[in-house]
């Protein structure tokens, strides 16, 4: 199908040729007509085009809005409480900047048209005017203060501490997918260590399930010391899944965000939120989902609606496909789902499954486990 290419090139070349011929001809014409006459003519045309552009542009702005507004998130209510605040902020900003946009653009193109060259007019020598300049320093300054005021009020609300009763979920990015972890019955995330990660042994997060001594290796793969890891019983009941993150409608949730390799970003567009996942430095974000996935399907009139997690930070060649899923469900549905989940420990060591063998060690030890979430865990170096 090289013909298409040649065809396109031919059209392009033809277009060039025609424009070029017209351009050349108009240059000769202007020599014949006299430069002054030619200048006046083209000046009139360009002046007229200024208003044409303005009018068509304004119509275009409205038309574009009509066409696309429904495809944005603004057409439906935000799915989180923070998102509602963000939408309010957005509307305030759109209102203020919108006014400025229309006023300045209209003035710009209108002045250009109105004050186009004319033999009769003399330009007005107007080099400065302190009153005007002070006016348009202070008015923008005050307006921006208003925007900063609202903005920071919401910002501190959103980034403030999560409510004490918030459910905790850990989400970890990797090339190219997401890993979700729930703390299990003890409500405590077990420790993990990145050198313990072993996909083959079902330990994609490096949970410290067993006592072990790990040999560190330097860049040349030579051994450079060892680390002693003690099993953390709090990790025995942690639920690890790649399927989806289940959240409860109306219950605040605090996400603990990690990355296993490069920087990713937990993008929750329907909740209007996002937060980077940085290797070595956990981040957090909390919010309260307001609608279940099922309700959202109705609100958006899209039976295929899902809360998708998009990776919003360039993370490699599969970046665009790094999709996660959030299922917002009712409390009952959540309890049901939760009951069906097996701890990752049990999946990795089927012989430890309480269903196969009694008693379960995890439950007994969990009280001793240190509190605190899965922030980068210090590794107990001493071995007894």
């Amino acid at each position: 199908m090289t013909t298409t290419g040649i065809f396109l090139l031919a059209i392009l070349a033809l277009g060039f040729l025609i424009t070029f011929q017209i351009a050349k001809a108009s240059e000769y014409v202007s020599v014949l007509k006299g430069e002054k006459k030619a200048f006046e003519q083209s000046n009139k045309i360009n002046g007229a085009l200024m208003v044409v552009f303005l009018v068509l542009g304004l119509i275009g702005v409205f038309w574009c809005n009509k066409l696309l507004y429904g495809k944005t998130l603004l057409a439906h209510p935000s799915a989180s409480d923070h998102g509602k605040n963000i939408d309010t902020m957005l509307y305030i900003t759109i209102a203020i900047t919108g006014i400025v946009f229309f006023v300045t653009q209209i003035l710009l193109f209108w002045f250009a048209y109105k004050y186009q060259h004319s033999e009769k007019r003399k330009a007005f020598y107007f080099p400065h005017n302190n009153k005007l300049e002070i006016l348009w320093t202070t008015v923008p300054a005050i307006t921006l203060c208003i925007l900063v005021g609202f903005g920071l009020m919401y910002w501190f609300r959103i980034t403030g501490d999560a409510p004490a009763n918030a459910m905790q979920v850990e989400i970890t990015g990797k090339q190219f997918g997401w890993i979700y972890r729930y703390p299990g019955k003890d409500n405590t995330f077990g420790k993990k260590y990145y050198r313990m990660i072993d996909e083959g042994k079902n330990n994609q997060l490096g949970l410290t399930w067993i006592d072990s001594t790990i040999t560190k290796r330097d860049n040349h793969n030579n051994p450079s010391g060892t680390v002693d890891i003690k099993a953390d019983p709090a990790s025995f009941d942690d639920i690890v899944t790649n399927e989806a993150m289940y959240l409860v409608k109306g219950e605040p949730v605090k996400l603990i965000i990690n990355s296993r390799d490069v920087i990713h970003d937990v993008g929750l567009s329907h909740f209007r939120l996002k937060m980077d996942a940085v290797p070595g430095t956990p981040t957090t974000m909390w919010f309260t989902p307001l609608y279940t996935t099922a309700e959202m399907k109705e609100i958006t009139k899209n039976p295929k609606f899902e809360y998708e997690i998009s990776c919003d930070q360039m993370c490699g060649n599969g970046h665009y496909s790094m999709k996660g899923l959030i299922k917002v469900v009712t409390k009952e549905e959540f309890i049901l789902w939760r009951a069906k989940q097996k701890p990752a420990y049990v999946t990795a060591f089927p012989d430890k499954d309480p269903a196969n063998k009694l008693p379960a060690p995890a439950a007994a030890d969990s009280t001793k486990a240190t509190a605190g979430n899965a922030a980068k865990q210090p590794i107990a170096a001493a071995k007894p």
Partner: protein
Amino acid sequence: MSNEAVLHGHPEVVTTHEVHHDEHHVHHHKETFITKYVFSQDHKMIAKQFLITGMTWAIIGGLMSVLFRLQLGYPDQTFPWLEDILGRWAKGGKITAENYYALVTMHGTVLVFFVLTGGLSGTFANFLIPLQCGARDMASPFMNMLSYWFFFGGSVVMLSSLFIQTGPFSGGWTAYPPLSALGDASPGSKTGMDLWITAMAMFVISSLLGGLNYISTVLNLRTKGMSMTRLPLTIWALFFTAVLGVLSFPVLLSGFILLLFDRHAGTSFYLSDIYINGVGALPNEGGSAILFQHLFWFLGHPEVYIILLPAMGMASEILSVNARKPIFGYMAMVGSLFAITILAFLVWAHHMFVTGLNPFLGSVFVLLTLLIAVPSAIKVFNWLTTIWKANIRFTPGMLFALGFVSLFISGGLTGIFLGNSTLDIHLHDTYFVIAHFHIVMGVSAFFGMFAGIYHWFPKMYGRYLNSTMAYVHFWVTLIGAYLIFWPMHYEGLAGMPRRYLDYSIWESFKQFSDLNKFISTVAMIVFAVQLMFVFNFFYSIFKGRKVTTQNPWGSTTLEWTAPIRPGHGNWPGEIPEVHRWAYDYSKDGRDFIPQTEPINPNESKH
């Protein structure tokens, strides 16, 4: 006159040569092709070298965007003819993910640094500073020449990275580690990244050599009577641009050097707790990936003003000349340039609101970021007042200057959204950001550059560009730019992430496929029209209408007192003395009063 005379600026030497007529070169000592066109130390020739290299890069960078827009607009089609032209870049007529990301990354790097920094500042700072300040050349013509050749060298290295086995760097122009540090995380981060860093290092050196020269020339080599407050705004803008570059590029370089250590010396500045699929756990512990972002954006934000200030300066000058009116509020214009320069160093973390930055620190950056909108607003209102009650000539330069103002308003206003951390949580890294910075920086800086080229082409080559082609170029580009970037705001408001190869697998973002097709189509048309401009440029160098008067635009500034085709040294006789500011248009019933004309005691004061 010898080159030495130029270098040391002894005007007496120049006056000794025989009087002769305009067009000829001032000095007659033997110049070889090499010293005149290649290793030239004449600021005007170096400016042209920067311009033409920059244009070459712009074509390459633009072409890359056409290719990846082809993928975005038509994700489910194949274009077998692409494979014929591009070989492995389009296997089976499709842009693969690997190539897509390589193209996007190179597009960004090339346009931001090699075109809108090197090409723009390099051209106009070199061309205008000596001519508008009244100097024979730069403070150090030799360093100036080196500046170009480092730029050229960087260009060659960057270009060569396109042809290596593992492909060029593909982690985005911001080059965040760990992705950019680990070859195992992305093939583009292998040799491609080493070449990228090398090229960028050479680019930084070029910028520093150039910038130091611009600063010292403006401070030390102004002609008699040219006080700082009589300088045209172009010079002020180019001066502040150079200051920004000199203070921020070294920080970027240091960030790159640490990155190189992490890549090759086993250090852990940016790396910690990393497990790579198929490789295993890496030894690095204790680094901070975010550190790089601080170093990067400490340049990165000033960089956007490095790109924009020259355009602002040229637009101010060209608006005033063609409105036949003084620029309104000259001191406010200088003051706002100054304010922008200072504030540009204090807002970098607004690119990092969602990295886990301390929320209080974030709030400080919100305040400072929105503060920077104040000087921007002052400039806009001053431009509007400049064309109020004017007598406007729509020269091609003027059209582009007006387009610049329109685009700067549109893009500046969306900055107010993004600078507000609350909204940035939602909009960060979506198409809203793409729309914002393309309009405010990409297109509007291009408009400033086009305005400059159309306006000063007669001074550069002694000929005019064809105006009919210029009008077509202007209107298609302005309309096209809005058609391409305006709807992207809506994509951003849908949360559509940037840097995605394909949206069709996303329930949340796939509703824009028609729009993407539309945008891609317009982008191709606009690109074709830029090629027409390139044609106009080269055609007019040789065949354009000849300039017959010394001051074709009726301009007050010094460059138009030099011969139509000035030689090395710029003025055949003594450098003219300056008696007034650069903006006496339509004063006391006179169309314009050149800067060289002494103040008449009866003149009205402003």
